[in-house]
């Protein structure tokens, strides 16, 4: 449905599972905004949510989102801000019900809340496999059959069109399950400007815009190389896309907020999690990140124009998770003098005591790190670094046998009395065995996924 607007403002206030609630709150308060998008799902999240739902049919979605709506609802209504969130997880209707309760509590009637579904394939996996979908692992080529009985979640990454459809139906709040991150931002553009499924260049432009804002303040000065030059890091402004009907857009942020929007800060985010920049594949389009121009048109304003796109593929990416064994990691802090030598001795002592008790771990199953002595940048440091005043010894194991992994954890803390002097920092206690969630990325025929949009009124 074309609304006739020439420009809309779309922002992202939640970049990942566990991000601060302040982004979304500030975006609704610090200046003008039309659409607020929120990403609550990491790959590991879907598996956790499936587990929660199996214990309680009213769970399995991002409860943070419900708390957020409770907090920002007055501003949403006052400014007519529409909210699009993948907070539905594996139970979008339960999420919608909880949001409805909040709307009721505030006495807000007539607000449209839409649910986008179809991404959750967990219940259809066997029939899909019977119909010929092999779900070959995109990295290894292996067929899903190898781990089928251990699969704990399976979700297709849906695109932007179901979100646009929900907005067309009049929703002010759109709740989805798994979808692409840029799709949250592209959806409102399709809705407002009436872009078609083969408007490849414009769909690609919205996808580039979505990629720029999908990690929140990572394009306004967060995680920026020259961090010393970033003003007011505490109050980094969240990114806003001012997009026009032709697909050209400006990246900006609200006046008076911290951080900076310039070519360099935006390019940092464009380069984030980048593969082949000429072929950025989503279910909506293949966007060419080498095609566009970037111009600084004023303070904290970068214009992006000329984005090119190629026709979308016929497949959805499916992300599956499966139980893949156990792991345990623990740490101790060891002070100097001779911190590094003592930490090395501590590691040897732990493995020797475990071996004495019949528990041996292969090199591939073991981790030994001396944090503070060059872990993150191993092999890239210049020689002659001074002896660290202390190091953090991180030890870990992984493998298929839970008992063997759990046994490791009980030999770490005893080093405080039975190792060299200066061993401390065991506050976390005995490390536990936790389940490893493996990922299985695959492709499947788009035509076998049925997306559904349903609208509810408060």
């Amino acid at each position: 449905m074309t609304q006739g607007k020439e420009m809309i403002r779309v922002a992202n206030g939640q970049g990942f599972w566990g991000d601060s609630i302040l982004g979304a709150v500030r975006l609704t308060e610090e200046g003008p905004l039309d659409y607020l998008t929120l990403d609550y799902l990491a790959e590991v999240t879907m598996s956790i949510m499936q587990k929660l739902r199996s214990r309680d049919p009213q769970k399995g979605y991002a409860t943070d989102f419900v708390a957020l709506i409770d907090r920002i609802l007055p501003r949403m209504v006052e400014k007519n801000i529409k909210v699009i969130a993948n907070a539905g997880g594996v139970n979008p209707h339960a999420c919608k019900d909880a949001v409805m309760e909040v709307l009721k509590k505030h006495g807000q009637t007539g607000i449209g809340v839409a649910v986008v579904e179809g991404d959750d394939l967990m219940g259809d996996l066997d029939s899909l496999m019977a119909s010929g979908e092999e779900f070959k692992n995109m990295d290894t080529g292996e067929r899903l059959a190898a781990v089928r009985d251990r699969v704990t979640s399976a979700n297709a990454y849906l695109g932007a069109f179901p979100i646009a459809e929900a907005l067309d139906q009049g929703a002010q709040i759109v709740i989805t399950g798994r979808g692409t991150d840029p799709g949250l931002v592209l959806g409102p553009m399709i809705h407002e400007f009436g872009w078609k499924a083969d408007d490849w260049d414009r769909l690609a432009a919205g996808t580039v815009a979505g990629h720029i804002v999908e990690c929140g303040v990572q394009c306004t000065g967060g995680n920026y190389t020259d961090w010393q030059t970033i003003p007011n890091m505490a109050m980094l402004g969240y990114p806003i896309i001012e997009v026009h009907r032709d697909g050209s857009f400006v990246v900006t942020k609200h006046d008076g907020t911290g951080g900076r929007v310039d070519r360099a800060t935006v390019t940092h985010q464009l380069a984030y999690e980048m593969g082949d920049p000429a072929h950025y594949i989503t279910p909506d389009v293949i966007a060419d990140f080498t095609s566009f121009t970037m111009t600084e048109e004023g303070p904290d304003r970068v214009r992006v124009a000329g984005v090119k796109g190629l026709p979308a593929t016929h497949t959805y990416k499916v992300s599956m998770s499966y139980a893949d064994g156990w792991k345990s990691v623990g740490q101790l802090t060891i002070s100097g003098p001779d911190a590094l030598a003592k930490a090395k001795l501590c590691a040897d002592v732990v493995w020797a005591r475990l071996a004495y008790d019949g528990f041996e771990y292969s090199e591939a199953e073991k981790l030994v790190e001396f944090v503070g002595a060059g872990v993150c940048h191993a092999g890239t440091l210049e020689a002659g670094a001074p002896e660290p005043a202390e190091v953090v010894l991180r030890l870990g194991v992984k493998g298929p046998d839970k008992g063997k992994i759990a046994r490791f954890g009980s030999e770490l803390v005893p080093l405080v009395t039975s190792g060299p002097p200066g061993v401390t920092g065991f506050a976390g206690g005995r490390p536990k065995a936790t389940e490893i969630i493996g990922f299985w990325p695959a492709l499947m025929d788009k035509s076998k996924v049925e997306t559904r949009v349903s609208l509810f009124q408060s």
Partner: protein
Amino acid sequence: MTVVALHRIAQARSGDKGEGSNVGLIARSEAAYQFLKEHLTAEVVQKHFAAINHGGVERFVADNMRVLNFLLEDSLGGGGSASLITDAQGKTHGLALLRLRMDVPDQVLDATPDPATASV
């Protein structure tokens, strides 16, 4: 020619890509970009990350952004929740690449603003 750390002529951001990481290297000037495009090959980066990355390195270029994008195939200790290592997402790999020291022509240095003199 002067030996400098890449940080002098480039910026970087990195993150996870499955069981590997990507390092996007952003040149600080067009002159720096042309120099890096010619000399900072996948082989040079592979050697630099030998103790971190246990797979191959693939390089992509984006002239419009002055970005060289390097994919390190096996640099996360297994990736996802299977990894035990501290930097399981490759968040610090960008800064590790900026530590690489290269012989850079003085014309390139002259044409590239020095980050040490930048201020808020």
